[in-house]
């Protein structure tokens, strides 16, 4: 697989480490009443879809940026790559 890095251009996926579901960007509120339950689901449960998947990749052997990659888990076709920072900011995070 080739990941088209937004800053560095096309790079071999072997340079990256796969972390998993990009939903992990949205941590639950630790002060909420159901925080224990929410963190259990956050840490351990996964949607694991067959098809389009939004996931976090870390450019460990490159510029150490975190990327959000939209990839098809049936074909390995990569549809979109962006910096995780841009993705998080669009969701209302400050950084």
């Amino acid at each position, binding site marked *: 697989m080739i990941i088209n890095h937004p800053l560095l251009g096309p790079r071999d*996926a072997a340079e990256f480490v*796969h972390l*998993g579901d990009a939903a992990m960007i949205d941590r639950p509120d630790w002060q909420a009443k159901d925080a224990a339950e929410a963190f259990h*689901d956050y840490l*351990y449960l996964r949607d694991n879809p*067959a098809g389009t998947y939004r996931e976090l990749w870390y450019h460990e052997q490159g510029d150490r940026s975190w990327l959000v990659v939209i990839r098809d888990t049936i074909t390995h076709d990569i549809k979109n790559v962006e910096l995780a920072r841009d993705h998080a900011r669009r969701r209302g995070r400050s950084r």
Partner: protein
Amino acid sequence: MAYSAFRIFRESLTGNRGWKPVWREPEPRPDYDIIIVGGGGHGLSTAYYLARNHGITRVAVLEKGWLGSGNVGRNTTIIRSNYMLPGNQPFYELSLKLWEGLEQDFNFNAMVSQRGVLNLYHSDPQRDAFVRRGNAMKLSGADPVLLDEAGVRKLCPFLDFDNARFPIRGGLWQPRGGTVRHDAVAWGYARGADRRGVDIIQNCEVTGFLIDSGVCKGVETARGPIRAKSVAVAVAGSSSRVMAKAGIRLPIESHVLQAFVSEGLKPVLPGVITFGAGHFYVSQSDKGGLVFGGDIDGYNSYAQRGNLPAVEDVCEGGMAIMPMIGRARLLRMWGGLVDMSMDGSAFIDRTEIDGLFFNGGWCYGGFKATPASGFCFAHLLATGESHPVARQMRLDRFRRGKLIDEKGQGAQPNLH
């Protein structure tokens, strides 16, 4: 009719006209006591042990494709019981004991070959870790043997003992481990279950569950609804997809694991050999091909094929311990889907929906578990209680902090 040498002799005298199909192809009945979703190794062994141990034969096994078309036909055929934690090791030792008596039990030649499994160590700390693992194996009645370098040299003189980076100092040897003809396991269990009255229904994909007020009462299939008192899902690799139809999210990611076979060579490997400093394991099939594999690719996938970096990594591991295989050509390679769970261990449990049971999360080690998995799943379905050796394989163990994490990697499926 039972298979025997006498039967072969008799058939040879009568033109081999007496052989019958090994299992029936029945139409699904409208209702059963138990429906098993998934006609792979684990589903078929569950059906077999339900009938054999518990006398429950109003059972249907529903398979989307053909029998054994999933991981039971795509693995590297290794059996062993060299785990460490008490939540796992007694289970795998039960499995190895069942493998040992399997062929006589289900009257089918599965070519169970106890040629031994050798895990190499390359440093003093790793030796210490293997001593600990060996002691844990002994607690369950397994048969670990700690070998020093001379012991390994005697067994496998062809290894690269003086490798500059990863010299081979010895190994943990399990003589009772080995390999099994994997397809024959599916066929043997299917035949055994069918002869006891279980309906095995192929080309019958489950498209949904019939759930009424939190109770599962059957399944929707491509061939119409079928009702049952209990529904048991054993579809490792696709567990999340199937259980999502019941609205259940699992602590599982699906990953791709590749396997490889070289061209046929003369007999050279005495048993299964694993590299202790990288991830590479190899055995030699009876046809002579080297059967080997290594790490999972490391990303979620349902593609049943992997990418080249994992191929390179596996081959590097092979070259590091046995450079002699460098001239052998790769004949075939393929990928299988594995349920990578959040702690690297499996599940045999009921679910939050009454009447719906789940078996999965086998990571890359489901094949060796096939007999005990069916044995314990059948026990749970028939008695409502977990089998003693599978008591920790619960779906809610993360909520209770009772993880079974052999490698201590934490909730990161691609590292287990």
